[in-house]
């Protein structure tokens, strides 16, 4: 167990450690830093859009760079590393092994992220997190774009190394008494999401190289003047990043599978249906990438195929929701902070999924595509589902990491502000999209409905910001000064927290 503040060690002991809990801690500190940096950009973007015309941001290029870095940071430097952090803490414990399969590789995968973080932030590119060709080739300014490409390249390699480590740890190092089918669903979520990474990520790695050589002028992959095709980039990009959506959401579903039975004081309704739904999601995640591209001039047949592929992902997601609700049904639920986040996350996951069905229907996509509807839609996933699950799990694992309790009152305040804020921001963004406001705009015409909705959204975003500030103070204060947790059962749920097989960090033995 990592009780850093009770048994302090010099910081470099943690930095140069290869132990899974130390690397897990590093991942989580990095990912939470990225959360606050990316979140600050979001607040600046929302303040800028409070009125039409320029407000706090000097020019459109600065604005464009800000939303690009906002997206890149929160996807690649918050969500993914946060999941890796939790996975590092718990996967070896859950499959009853002393560490990850390759501890040094694990440390390398983590230490590739800070340089990539620096490249993304020091470059501050402007071509959106999609980096669509040919804009990213012929129009995106200067070293910023190249730094982004190198940064993402490094993050991709880090992600592949991490995925190999999780797959090998779970398949080859699990305790012989533990059949794979009985492994906890959180471990299953890391197995399936890691397998998706291994299949999906190399395509984007290739696309990045092609972008780079195109930018250097030594190739013309995406230049139609010599027979290249800019749409090819979009296929390569989304072949990686639609499955990547599931890489982001599957660990969050795993978090919910850990929280919900614990706080409902009931076993999971169906372990096997959870496993089945994870595997099904991993497979169908590869059948829907071009639903991002209906408006690029795809034929009717192509669109039909990808609509069917997209709809096919819904039953598996619906099985998870059913499993959560059936687990809660008839349970003695304790509405502590982690459970509140989990319940909020399920509600927003369901809303996001319903919106996704609307997007996938071809004629309706031509209303919602590239409008604020889409912004609201995917934020319901990344914020409403994934970040909610992550916050819930952070509160859940907090006593395990620090040996202390967070403030329950402020944890609930964080949840309430975030839930109200998320509903205000992301539901309103759907409506704003139906009114026709395009995404990624620095300024908008003074249409009264647009102004009113933008102001409502900005107020919601401020609630999210206040919640995040409360969260920051709560975790910093509580990790140093919080009440010592009852490590057997921090929430008084009955039954033993966490697992009988505890992590044994050799640095803590003396």
């Amino acid at each position, binding site marked *: 167990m990592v009780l850093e503040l009770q048994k302090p060690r010099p910081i470099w002991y943690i930095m140069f450690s290869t132990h899974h809990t130390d690397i897990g801690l590093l991942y989580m500190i990095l990912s939470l830093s990225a959360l606050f940096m990316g979140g600050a950009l979001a607040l600046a973007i929302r303040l800028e859009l409070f009125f039409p015309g320029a407000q706090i941001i000097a020019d459109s290029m600065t604005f464009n760079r800000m939303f690009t870095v906002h997206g890149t940071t929160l996807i690649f430097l918050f969500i993914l590393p946060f999941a890796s952090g939790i996975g590092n803490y718990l996967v070896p414990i859950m499959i009853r092994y002393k560490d990850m399969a390759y501890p040094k590789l694990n440390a390398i995968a983590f230490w590739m992220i800070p340089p990539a973080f620096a490249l993304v932030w020091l470059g501050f590119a402007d071509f959106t997190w999609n980096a669509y060709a040919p804009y990213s080739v012929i129009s995106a300014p200067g070293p910023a774009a190249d730094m982004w490409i190198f940064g993402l390249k490094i993050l991709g390699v880090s992600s592949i190394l991490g995925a190999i480590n999780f797959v090998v740890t779970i398949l080859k190092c699990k305790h012989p008494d533990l059949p794979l089918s009985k492994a906890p669903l959180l471990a299953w979520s890391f197995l399936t999401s890691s397998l998706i990474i291994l299949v999906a990520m190399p395509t984007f790695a290739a696309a990045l190289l092609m972008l780079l050589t195109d930018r250097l002028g030594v190739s013309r992959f995406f230049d139609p003047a010599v027979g290249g*095709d800019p749409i090819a980039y979009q296929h390569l990009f989304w072949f990686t990043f639609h499955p990547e959506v599931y890489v982001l959401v599957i660990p969050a579903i795993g978090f919910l599978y850990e929280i919900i039975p614990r706080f409902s004081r009931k076993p999971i309704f169906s372990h096997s249906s959870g496993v089945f739904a994870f595997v099904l999601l991993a497979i169908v995640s590869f059948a829907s990438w071009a639903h991002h591209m209906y408006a690029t*001039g795809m034929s009717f047949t192509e669109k039909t195929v990808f609509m069917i592929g997209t709809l096919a992902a819904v039953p598996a997601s*619906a099985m998870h929701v059913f499993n959560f609700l059936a687990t809660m049904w008839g349970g003695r639920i304790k509405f502590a902070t982690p459970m509140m986040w989990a319940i909020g996350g399920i509600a927003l996951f369901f809303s996001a999924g319903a919106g996704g069905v609307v997007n996938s229907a071809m004629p309706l996509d031509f209303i919602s595509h590239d*409008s604020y509807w889409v912004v609201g839609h995917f934020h319901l996933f990344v914020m409403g589902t994934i970040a909610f699950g992550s916050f819930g799990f952070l509160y859940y694992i907090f006593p395990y990491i620090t040996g202390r309790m967070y403030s329950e009152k402020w944890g609930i305040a964080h949840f309430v502000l975030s839930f109200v804020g998320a509903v205000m921001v992301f539901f309103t963004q759907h409506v704003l999209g139906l009114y026709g406001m395009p995404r990624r705009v620095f300024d908008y015409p003074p249409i009264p409905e647009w102004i009113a909705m933008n102001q409502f959204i900005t107020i919601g975003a401020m609630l999210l910001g206040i919640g995040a500030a409360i969260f920051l103070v709560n975790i910093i204060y509580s990790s140093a000064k919080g009440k010592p947790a009852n490590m057997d059962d921090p929430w008084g749920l009955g039954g033993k927290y966490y697992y009988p097989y505890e992590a044994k960090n050799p640095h803590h033995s003396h």
Partner: protein
Amino acid sequence: MSGHSHWPEWIYIGVVVALLVWVGAEAWNLERLVEHVPEDAKVIKVTGQQWFWTFEHEDGTKEVGELHVKKGVPYKFEVTSTDVIHSFNIHDYVVLMDAVPGRINIVWFVPFDEGEFPIQCREYCGLIHYNMRGTLYVEDDA
């Protein structure tokens, strides 16, 4: 699978699948109709470039940033771009098609209301993307 019964889950999955099939079938049928361009549609060539729209009518007249059309006449847009990807959008008529360099994408509509409607770009295209706007003027011939 522990001792409890699973039939509620099967019913629930059945309902979800039925809903999806319905949405998919409706979408397929509607899109099939929407994509059928009328034979008598007049062609307008739409060209996006950083950061304005150019329209060329069948008779060769060109307009920049403004598009004048007649009420009740079907129009077929041939959308392309000379630099980066844009997206040609008249939101009030659900006209949305990416302008991709090296490709000509087809989208059509029939204006049924007189008046002025905003034209905008819906795909990020750089510095002035937010203001890559134009106006559609629908006029009554009679």
